[in-house]
């Protein structure tokens, strides 16, 4: 499955990129599985996702939980807890 991955704030700074298109293996079916897979892509990913418990996720621009399915996702975004307002 080919999907656009976007990174924001310090997740973007640590991965060194704002977005990329990745081909996900078939056994990566949930957000949590995607995080584990991303961590194996390189030291910058391992560093970016070291505090995986605090990182928030959105699928197609809506907040989701780590257990969420990736089925049908076009855009997946990773970011720190929001600090607007």
């Amino acid at each position, binding site marked *: 499955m080919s999907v656009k991955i976007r990174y924001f*704030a310090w997740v973007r700074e640590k991965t060194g990129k704002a977005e990329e298109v990745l081909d996900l293996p078939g056994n990566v079916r949930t957000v949590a599985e995607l995080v584990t897979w991303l961590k194996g892509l390189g030291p910058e990913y391992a560093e970016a996702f070291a505090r995986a418990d605090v990182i928030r996720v959105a699928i197609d621009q809506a907040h989701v939980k780590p257990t969420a399915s990736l089925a049908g996702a076009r855009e997946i975004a990773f970011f720190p*807890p929001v600090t*607007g*307002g």
Partner: protein
Amino acid sequence: MGVRVQREDFDIGAEVRRLAAGRTDIGAIVTFTGTMRGDNDGHRISDMTLEHYPGMTESELARVEAEAGKRWPLQASLIVHRIGALRPGDNIVLVVTASAHREAAFAAAEFLMDYLKTSAPFWKKERGPDGAERWVEARQSDDRAAERWTKRE
């Protein structure tokens, strides 16, 4: 009803006048303005950059606004949030709620701010007088403020 994300400053008086223009069904207008402090958690701040997630920001703000409209009888509402470079004293966010009576307008304005702070994808990066940059950490008190609206249900 409306949400805007913009780099430019906003004029609170002009926004309120536009929102209420020609209306005779409004009896209460509440405005909240969030502005930038020159210190945070004991750090002095020279300037700040607000990053956001274009597209999701607008849809989250619209979702929160629609939720407020379901919970309270609002005649009108507006959320304006700035992005980009900001300095201490600058406006950051404006929330306006208008209702027939003050209770709904007060409560909805507070609700909008509490929900916006925990769900709209904005991130603040501060820079100190020495040039050192730091991402602002989310506050647990903001999560608790948003949670109290779910406990009432």
